């Protein structure tokens, strides 16, 4: 089946070459980081996680969101998702690989990464996160690939794959819950020390994930002539709307608890992010931009006339993705570290090497997604020709 990825037009190959060029700058920057150290990032002893871990957190959500098409299709037999379910699964595969790459990029001694498995430590949430992420990757590769190969041969998928797919459903929730537990269980990091962190992660994931899925489907329709179907897109936009509203609702809960209780520690993180603390507010414009764009997109989605217009829908999808990416991929991580446990304001700005690695990892993910979708679309289109 893999051979289908090698047949494409000039635009397809141009795109692949472009991605490879960007990846190679990322690889070069990574080698740079490997030989010099993580000093080539903007991180410090106070802000000890940065853009890598932030991307990781955002992408775990994208990976988990595949369940929003898998669940209706396989559990409720919702036929309209028949064509989009494979896109969701392959998006999850690409996103999970990016997550793993971001972890590798972040750690100081990648040569020792197997220590996590050689000395399994169940009391560490990172051990569980590594376990569930690798498991999720395997589940999605196996279920996506098996169902697709069966389709290519024109036979029903083997029976054993059903339990694998069913297992992937709770597993999707687990990856983002455990990822939230990385943060939510740490004493002294008030922004993270909240019981709604995992629910909020899931809500933002189920908004941003379907938004990306709609955008990918639109691109596929334009470039490959593969139509996932109007009904599928409509349903996804409804899911996205509910999830985005839930996300903002939960964010509102955070504000209420922090500011009504008036406990300084609880307020500091949000104050730093949204209003500035002790005159310092590096991220204030970004956070408000995220808030306004996010709420604006929700408004667009709430109006059925706009939601069903493709142009408005695409704008809203981009808005939701950008908003959640800033909130989860920038604010959440930095706001957990600043103010520091010693109540100091320490700045963080990713440097160029770090950004090139980040773009490189994204390009790896997009390349994997391109190849997987090329295969999926070719198989699905053959179907259409036959019938």
């Amino acid at each position, binding site marked *: 089946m893999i051979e289908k990825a090698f047949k494409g037009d000039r635009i397809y190959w141009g795109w692949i070459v472009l991605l490879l060029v960007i990846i190679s700058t990322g690889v070069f920057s990574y080698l740079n980081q490997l030989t*010099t*150290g*993580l*000093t080539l*990032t903007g*991180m*410090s*002893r*106070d802000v*000890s*996680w940065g853009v890598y871990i932030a991307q990781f957190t955002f992408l775990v959500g994208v990976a988990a969101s595949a369940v929003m098409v898998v669940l209706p299709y396989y559990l409720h037999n919702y036929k309209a998702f028949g064509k989009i379910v494979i896109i969701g699964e392959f998006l999850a595969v690409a996103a999970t690989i990016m997550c793993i790459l971001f*972890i590798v990029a*972040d*750690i*100081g*001694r*990648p040569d*020792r*990464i197997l*220590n*996590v498995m*050689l*000395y399994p*430590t169940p*009391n*560490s*949430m*990172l*051990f569980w996160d*590594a376990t569930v992420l690798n498991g999720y990757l395997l589940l999605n590769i196996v279920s996506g690939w098996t169902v697709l190969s069966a389709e290519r041969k024109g036979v029903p998928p083997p029976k054993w794959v059903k339990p694998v797919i069913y297992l992937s459903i709770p597993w999707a929730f687990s990856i983002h819950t455990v990822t939230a537990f*990385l*943060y939510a*269980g*740490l*004493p*002294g*990091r008030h922004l993270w020390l909240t019981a709604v962190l995992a629910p909020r992660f899931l809500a933002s994931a189920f908004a941003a994930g379907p938004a990306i899925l709609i955008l990918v489907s639109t691109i596929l329709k334009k470039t490959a002539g593969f139509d996932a179907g109007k009904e599928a897109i409509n349903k996804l936009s409804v899911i996205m709307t509910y999830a985005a509203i839930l996300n903002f609702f939960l964010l509102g809960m955070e504000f209420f608890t922090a500011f009504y209780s008036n406990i*300084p*520690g609880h307020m500091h993180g949000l104050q730093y992010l949204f209003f500035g603390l002790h005159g310092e507010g590096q991220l204030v414009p970004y956070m408000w931009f995220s808030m306004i764009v996010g709420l604006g997109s929700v408004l667009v989605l709430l109006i059925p006339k706009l939601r069903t217009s493709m142009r408005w829908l695409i704008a809203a999808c981009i808005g939701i993705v950008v908003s959640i990416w800033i909130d989860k991929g920038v604010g959440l991580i930095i706001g*957990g*570290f600043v103010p*520091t*446990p*010693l*109540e*100091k304001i*320490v700045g963080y700005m990713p440097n160029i090497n770090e950004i090139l690695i980040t773009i490189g990892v994204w390009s790896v993910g997009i390349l994997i997604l391109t190849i997987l979708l090329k295969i999926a679309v070719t198989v699905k289109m053959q179907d259409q020709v036959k019938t």
Partner: protein
Amino acid sequence: MNENRREFIRKTGLGVLAGIGAASGIIPGASFEKVAASPAHQDEATGVRWGMVIDTRKCRDGCNRCIDACHEVHNVPDFKGTKDEIKWIWKDPYENVFPGESGQFLSKETKEGLYHALCNHCDKPPCVRACPTKATFKRKWDGIVAMDYHRCIGCRFCMAACPYGSRSFNWRDPRPAIKKINPAYPTRERGVVEKCNFCSERLAQGMKPACVAECSEGALVFGDLNDPNSEVRELLENNHTLQRRSELGTRPSVFYIL
């Protein structure tokens, strides 16, 4: 809902309740009646538990000999500025070392004074809980929270977990920034975390920690918290002391007399 289902749910519910009831009788840990003091206030006295009492009244302004001694003994590099900074023990203002303690109407002395910050060698260390490889661990025999520099993968989860900012990471090769290498203690490699080790290497030779030995004012007192006759216990007995952020339940082994 049909009758069978209702009956099933009722029976399952009863079964679960009965199970919990039985378990609470048989397994003492699961008993509902057990009343335990908050772990932050419990004292366990088994084995040695190294601890420190810092008598801040005796610490002289402008004296950093304890800090210099520690960093020299342990080959702690000195990168100028905060970007790649590594520190095991340092001094900071009251509001930074004791956030959450009362900051209103502070005396001039308290407001302007500097206070030691170092690893608290917590009895319930969050960093140990977070570490995915047991590269940081609490030594059962003396309570020291130690590091295995050869196992650490540099994920920095411990740094996120520590509520005292006591941990540093080797963002670059530390060796060029070490003024004079002490061959008696290993230097670290790039990419691993490090912190105060309560001078476990000196304790093994019967010596006191370097910072304690260096302080001629007697501001730093070291000893076994589990030994009722130790000097630290005597100080704790006769003075009102503070632990940093005791509300977090980490049970620090470093106490402050203000």
